[in-house]
Each structure stands twice: as C-alpha cells, then as structure tokens.
C-alpha cells in the first residue's frame, strides 16, 4: 500500500510533482502513466525517500519509507536510472545489499537464477547490456521478498521474451497479494498488465481509475456509419459538439454522438444506413486524449 497526499516537489523553479494524492492498493497491478517529464520517476524517488518532498508526504505500508526498520522487505524498487556500481559483479552487488538486512547468500543466488543472470553473475555489471541491467535491477527489487514492488519503466531494453516475462511477473506478484506499482509512458504496454491506472501530466493527477472506468470516462463516443447517403447524413448530424469525418466515400466517422443518437437522427431524416458501429477508443487513444494538453515536450 502506497499513500501519497499533496505530494509536491520543486527543483529550483521547476515544479516536477504538483500536489499528487493517490493510493496504490495491494493485490492489483497499478500502472503509473504520464508523458515524458511528467514526474513519474520523481514521484518514485519521493516514495523511497531518496528526494525530499517540498510539500506533502507519502507513506508505504503505513509509514514513511525511512522509518521502516527493514525497508527492503517492505519495498523493492527498480529505478529508472541505473543504480549499480559498474566495477562490481552482479553477485557482489546483490550480496552487499542483502547483507544490510542479514539476507542469506542463498537468496542472492536464487534471485540471480530467477532473473536469468546465472551465466554473468560474476562479471562486472558495467559490461551489462541494457536488458541485463534491467534484470539485475529486478533481482535487486525482489531480493527482500517485499510487500510492495515498485518498478520504473521495467520493460525498457528488454527483448519480447523479457517483456512477456515482466508482464507475467507483475501479475503473479499482484496475485500473491502484493502492491505492484509500475510506471510507463506507453499506454499499450499498461493495457496488457495493469488493473488500475494513475495518470499524471506536468506533475498533476489527471486520472485515477480502473482500466474499464478509464476507457469509459476518457473516450468520447466514436461511431462509424456506412450509408449511401453520406453527404445527407453529414448535414443531418451537424452540430457544434459533433465532428464528422469522411473516411472514404460512404463511410463516416462521427465523434461526439452515440450509435443510438446517430441511428435516431438517420431515421428522423429517412436516411438509409448499411452499417452503424460504435467504437471504443483504445487505451492509447484515451491516454493521448487526456494528456494532449499536458505534454511537457511536445513535438512541434
């Protein structure tokens, strides 16, 4: 369980996180989404007490992270930036962290096997590929068998097999009753794993909802209509809150009306319809829609 209340962080003049309040609950995968520079990594550092909030506070399993006497058993974290000494082997890296909590050597070797780094466990971590580094980060996160797992962009640099593995891992961790909090700037990836979404933009909360709620709430109704009287139908539907696009002759995309409303309008004008299909916006579209105004670094 992670609870943030009015969490705010300024770096000089720059407000990276702006009054965030949210709960991350156990037993489900909570996706943490936002465009680049929206404050996801900063929020995660605040949760771990690595950076101090300018205002507000955040607790993990009921206490500020710093006050836990065995923090690695409470939270396992994979941060965005690499957090490994390049001159040390993967095994010694894990061992040094394990020793702070009196975690046995055997557990270190188990975790190395678990993430598939057995072959390179004695090699310098500085020589690791991006994906191998990510695996080592995940081994670090799981080392203390923590109640809460927090991963910042975990699939970064992983091959398809690795991505698949992470998805399964996250779902299994949640099924075991753990709190799973995982960030991404890719909605499509979250669509496959998350049960709940927390979306931020420019450091502010935009949405905090289950995946179905999010889709229902974020997407304006979108309807595809096929009609031999396309032009006539377009005129019949015209209204300031509705946009009608002609995708191809005879096929219209109507934005802002439900399928029922389109059908009724057609009937009222005696227009023949060959097809009337309601479309739910994809998660990706819903996300783009929500965050369009909140882009930190928009392409121009």
């Amino acid at each position: 369980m992670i609870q943030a209340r009015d969490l705010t962080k300024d770096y000089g003049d720059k407000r990276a996180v702006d009054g965030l309040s949210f709960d991350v609950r156990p037993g489900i995968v909570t996706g943490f989404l936002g465009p680049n520079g929206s404050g996801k990594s900063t929020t995660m550092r605040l949760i771990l007490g690595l950076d101090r909030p300018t205002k507000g506070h955040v607790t993990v399993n009921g206490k500020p992270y710093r006050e836990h006497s065995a923090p690695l058993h409470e939270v396992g974290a994979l941060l965005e930036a690499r957090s490994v000494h390049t001159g040390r082997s993967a095994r010694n890296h894990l061992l040094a962290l394990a020793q702070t909590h009196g975690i046995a050597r055997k557990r270190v070797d188990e975790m190395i096997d678990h993430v598939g780094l057995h072959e390179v466990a004695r090699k310098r971590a500085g020589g690791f590929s991006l994906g191998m580094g990510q695996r080592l980060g995940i081994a670090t996160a799981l080392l203390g068998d923590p109640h809460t797992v927090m991963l910042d962009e975990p699939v970064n640099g992983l091959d398809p097999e690795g991505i698949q593995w992470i998805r399964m891992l996250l779902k299994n961790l949640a099924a075991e009753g753990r709190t799973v909090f995982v960030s991404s700037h890719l909605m499509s990836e979250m669509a496959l794993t998350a049960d709940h979404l927390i979306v931020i933009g420019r450091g502010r909360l935009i949405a905090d909802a289950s995946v179905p709620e999010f889709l229902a709430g974020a997407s304006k109704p979108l309807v595809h209509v096929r009609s031999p009287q396309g032009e006539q139908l377009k005129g019949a539907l015209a209204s300031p809150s509705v946009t009608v696009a002609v995708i191809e002759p005879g096929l219209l995309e109507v934005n802002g009306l439900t399928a029922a409303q389109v059908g009724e309008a057609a009937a009222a004008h005696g227009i023949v319809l060959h097809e009337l299909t309601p479309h739910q916006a994809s998660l990706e579209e819903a996300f783009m829609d929500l965050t369009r105004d909140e882009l930190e670094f928009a392409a121009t």
Partner: protein
Amino acid sequence: MSAIASPSASSRERVTQSRVIRSEWTKLRSVRSTSWSLLAATVLTIGFPILASAVISAHWGHRSPGERAHFNPIDPALVGSQIAQLAIGVLGVLVISAEYSTGMIRASFTAVPMRLPVLWAKAIVFAAVTFVLMLPAVLIAFFASQSILSRHNANIAFSDPHVARAVIGAALYLTVIALFSLGLGAIIRNTAGGIAAFAAVLFVIPPLMNVLPASWNDAASRYLPSNAGRAILSITHDSGSLSPWVGFAVFCGYAAFTLAVAALLLVRRDT
C-alpha cells in the same frame, strides 16, 4: 528466468550498523581497482624506503661529515607514507564519489534509508583496512631500511626515543587521511572535485602560505591539516611545528569536522 513465482525469503531481519559494516566490507573488496590500488599503496610504502635507503647507502661514501651529521634515518623509512597518502586520499574520495557517479548510492540509500549508517560503515571499514595494511607496511619499511643503513652505522633503533611513536604514527596519520578524504568525497560527491579538494588541502595550500607575511605564516602554517598531521611522523621537534600528539589531535579534528559536515549534508540532500 524459468520460474515466474518469486521465491520467498525465509527471514525478515532489520538493518543494523554491524550489517551495514559487513555490506560496506563486501563493497570495498569487490571492486577490483580498489583492491589493486590498496595493494599498490602497500607495496610502495614498503618499496620506496628500501629503494631510498639503498641509494643513500650506496652514496654514503660521497657524503660530507656535515651531511652525515644532518642525516635523519627516520626520513627514508617513512618516505613511503608520502606516496601512500596520495593513493589513500584518492581511494577515500572514490569510496563514496563512485557511488554517486554510478548511481549505486540510490541502491545503498534504498537499502539503508537512514543513510548515516552507510557513512559510518564506510568510515569504519576504510579506516580499518588502511590501518591494518599500513601498520605492517611502515614497520617492514622501517626495519628493512634501517638494516640497509646499518652497514654504515647510520641507522636508529625502534627503541630509540620517539621512533616507535613516529613509525606507528605514520600508520595513524594515513588512517586519518583515509577518514578526511572520505569526508571530502561525501561532501563534494564528485570524483574529480573531491580529489582536487584533497590535493589542494594537502599539497597546494601549504606552499601558498608563503605569500603571507612571515609572522602570520609561522603562526598559521603549523595548524594546516598536513603540517599538523605530519608532526607525529617526526622524531625531532622544532619550534615551527606542533608537538606530535597535539598536531595529531588537530588533524583528527579536521577529519572529524569534515565527516560531521558530510553527515549533515548526507541526510539533507536529495540523491
């Protein structure tokens, strides 16, 4: 990567200072460049005095009686500490600055979010390793160099006045150098900056004191970290320097102050 379910840990124990010390010991010995540098410092601490004594011994016949009278046999014995202090100072900075440059510090502070146990553990481990390596090194250097010099009866004995204090003092001095440089590294958090600060304090500021009026220079110079610290290595006491133990205490004060500032900043700053 075969199993998906994560194996569970059997025990759930808390972070303690002694566990953090064990962790820091693992960190120190598991970076190869650190081990090699420590080995090199030890070898040089022994090798340089042997070389210096051999050279002095070979040229003894060419020395004037005046030169022979002025010769202080402790000097070649402890010349290795001059080189060792550089290696130990650089390593002391690196012990912490490398964690910042690689990002390891975030892992360290995630495991030990109180942070201070990490600083104390680094100090204890690095100081202990330095002392344990340097004490035998200076002893070997002393006895080896004196046995070379004994050919010309130019040697002194370990039991002569102040000699034991100076030789053991060299190891103590290097140990405090370790702590002082660790403190600088923790304050500056950057390898190049930390090493520059260390070099400035030890090697650059002392000669700069010469631009001061002579009376100020005389009064202030002896309190500089390097001059105060090296008083313990000397068996002759002159009026321009602090007495050995006072000087050493002043030097320890500098190291303690540096570590205290480092500790204050460590708990306050973002990582």
